[in-house]
């Protein structure tokens, strides 16, 4: 660490001679964090199949991917694979920028989407334990910590006393630029407050101008992710953002290549790609945590889908992640190993993983973590998730 840092400074010193504006004058690097909430309960065993488990094919009959050919999983470490729709995630894994955590979950053990998402977002076992989100609490513990929600409503994870802002694509049509300019002149002439608001509003809208074009609602993550990337890479911008993606409640037709599950995964993967491209070099200082409220049943239901379960998978992506591996205390798929006889058991607490990221990436103090961010007893932040 010390060596590489000195090497970097030396290089910067040389660069300063010829290209002053690109060297010391640059703004200090900032750690960035993006939370992507997959609403509906993502099937972790579908996204990251445990193909090396001898019981996998049988336990997942009807849902397991073929070993070869169309629909075969992308290989990770031999034991785990990735759904073929997750091309960008797989590339990141190869570049050691993706870490998959498996058999992970919140402390909530019932099966209501809404309560489970509440629990995930406030960071407590009890779904209505407070109305402050854990990410808001974490930002509140950091100097200048500000969060951004990209979407119509601010997700609970980000709600609370710490400052947040929001941006969403409009369902209304944007007026023509010429009209906006004229209106701006009119406001400037007689209403300074309106003029200031319109200037800021138009700017934000322009930053995300491509969003107005066919962003669709909810199903296509890429435009929203691109907008989030642009807000985050601004040195004065927020340090954390929350994105949401629905469509994971796959009770039917889950295994089909063109079915809802594949579509949702492609949207997620495309969103990750768009985010990386929009962040540019800031991607190197970014951790993206992809989480869901619960996993799904191991076995297939009567409709070719899966039902609300427990353990799922989560992804940590980004240049700051110590990736290229799968982290799992694998519980196994034998009947007796399944939770309530039907679900992948939770062996890793999601809050422990998130706490590890917040501690080592954003420098949230261990005291703030255990008192404000994840105040339930027994928090043990996982170390080593972030590139040293």
């Amino acid at each position, binding site marked *: 660490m010390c060596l590489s840092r000195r090497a970097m400074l030396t290089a910067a010193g040389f660069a300063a001679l010829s290209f002053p504006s690109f060297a010391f004058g640059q703004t200090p690097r900032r750690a960035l964090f993006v939370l992507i909430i997959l609403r*509906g309960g993502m099937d972790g065993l579908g996204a990251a199949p445990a193909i090396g488990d001898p019981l996998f094919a049988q336990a997942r009959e009807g849902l397991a991917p073929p070993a070869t050919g169309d629909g075969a999983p992308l290989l990770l470490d031999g034991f785990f694979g990735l759904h073929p729709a997750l091309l960008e995630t797989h590339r990141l894994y190869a570049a050691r920028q993706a870490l998959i955590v498996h058999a992970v979950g919140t402390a909530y053990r019932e*099966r*209501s*989407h809404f309560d489970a998402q509440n629990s995930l977002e406030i960071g407590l076992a009890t779904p209505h334990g407070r109305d402050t989100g854990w990410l808001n609490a974490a930002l509140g513990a950091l100097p200048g910590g500000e969060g951004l929600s990209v979407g119509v409503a601010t997700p609970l994870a980000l709600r609370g006393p710490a400052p947040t802002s*929001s*941006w*969403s694509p*409009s*369902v*209304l*049509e*944007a*007026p*023509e630029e*010429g*009209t*906006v300019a*004229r*209106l701006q*002149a*009119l*406001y400037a*002439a*007689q*209403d300074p*407050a*309106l003029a200031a*608001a*319109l*200037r*800021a*509003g*138009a*700017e*934000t*809208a322009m930053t995300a101008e491509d969003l107005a074009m066919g962003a669709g609602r909810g199903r296509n993550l890429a435009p929203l992710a691109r907008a989030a990337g642009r807000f985050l890479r601004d040195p004065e911008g927020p340090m954390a953002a929350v994105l949401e993606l629905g469509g994971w*409640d796959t*009770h039917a037709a889950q295994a089909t290549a063109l079915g809802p599950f594949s579509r949702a995964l492609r949207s997620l993967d495309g969103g990750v790609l768009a985010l990386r491209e929009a962040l540019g070099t800031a991607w190197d200082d970014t951790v993206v945590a992809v989480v869901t409220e619960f996993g799904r*049943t191991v*076995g297939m*239901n*009567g*409709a070719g*889908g*899966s*039902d*609300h379960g427990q353990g799922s998978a989560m992804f940590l992506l980004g240049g700051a992640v110590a990736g290229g591996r799968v982290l799992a205390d694998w519980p196994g798929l034998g009947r007796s190993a399944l939770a309530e*006889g*039907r679900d992948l058991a939770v062996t890793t607490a999601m809050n422990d993983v998130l706490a590890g990221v917040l501690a080592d990436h954003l420098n949230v103090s261990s005291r703030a973590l255990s008192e404000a961010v994840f105040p339930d007893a027994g928090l043990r932040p996982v170390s080593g998730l972030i590139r040293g």
Partner: protein
Amino acid sequence: MPDLALAAIAAHRFGFGPRPGELSAIAGDPRGWVKAQLRAPASEPPAIAALPAAEDDLLAFRRWLARQRLSARGETEMAGAGEQASASQEGRQAASLEQSYVGAFRDRFVRAVNARIIAAATSDAPVLERLVHFWGNHFTVSSLKPAASVLPPSFERDVARAHAQGRFSTMLIASCRHPGMLIYLDNVLSVGPNSSAGLTGRGAPRAPGGAGGQVRDINENLAREVLELHTMGVEAGYTQADVQALAAILSGWTVDRPRRRDILSDQAGERSGDELFRFDEALHEPGPQRLLGELYPDHGLAQGEAALLALSRRPETARFLAFKLARHFVSDAPPAAVIARMAQAYLDSDGDLTSTVEAMVDSPEAWEAPLVKFRRPEDYLIALLRSLNIQALPESTAWATTALASMGQRPFSAPGPDGWDDTEAGWIGADQVWKRVEFASEMAERFAGADLRASALAEAWLGPLLSAATRRALQQAESPAQALTLLFAAPEMQRR
């Protein structure tokens, strides 16, 4: 001598803005135009009268709940043995629950929103409509709480509209009796611990969500908000002991449980919110209570009525209501003299709301203040509809609901019991203003036609309020649609 400038103030500040031709009609006696509306006998606008009764909304909700439970049970029984199969049913039910709710109540909700908007947009007594909206927001019941989600429209009609020209104490008591408020602020879950239900559990309500058991204790929610939001205001100096006393006094104020056969039948419910009220002695905390130094002996229902009446007569209440009314109509920082006069009129008339509002209309300051009050999205939308003389919205179209949600003010859905923010700061955010400009543009695209000229519309709508800069901008616009957008979004249209 007709006064167009005063007419514009009357129409914009005290109403929702004029319809075409209305300014010159008002100009003969602007102040008289406002005051006549306050004293005229109110008739319920047809669109509002046609909305279902509170009981019908409540029954629809209970029927829907019953259907959900029934289908849940049915599917579980059909599924029989297989663990797998029952898990599948359960998942499918959870997934379809929200969809089913939206499907069942969307039309009801949209119809109520459209009725409220069209009533205001077509009213000959817009000042009264403004007051209905004001009191509806003062006593907020929000659709954001699922159990109360169908009740805000009937609450507004039964409480705010019914009593806007009457005594505040009447409105306050009506509010506390309406199922909308009783459910929204949890008084239906309030049980005196020493009441018979509290002691034995017999007749005690069940905790919501199915998970919990019976409720055997006081819920302070309604009592706290009555003191903090509805009467004295948070700075009035009451204590937690007062909140507890009022909560005990109001325990037993609950909703008549719908009969099983009414739920099973398909008949429309006809009872108003007030007719659904029930005082349940079995839930009422027995004994006298001391509230704000006064002792209220336990005469059951009369104990609560006496306490609410006394609260309505407090000088703190008079000042709080006067301040909120003046802030709503005149300016974010209303002149102290106006507030003082209104509060005095309120106390002198034993809380007569018409006298209180009249004191504002009679205050010269209320007419002299510059037109700086920033219209909230719903006021803004209604003002534009009036300027275009729109007479109807197709009953089932969610256009207005969607537009208002986008601008941050989905009707009947205020974020909390304190209602919508009534100051500029709450509405002049960058995204909010941008969405408003987009809305202005959409309205222009929708209504721009060969026969609609922005300049003429501007003169009819604003009269002397139209600024030289806006007039010039309209003349120089590059298209009729652009001119309309500029007019709809102009500062004079955003403020009143």
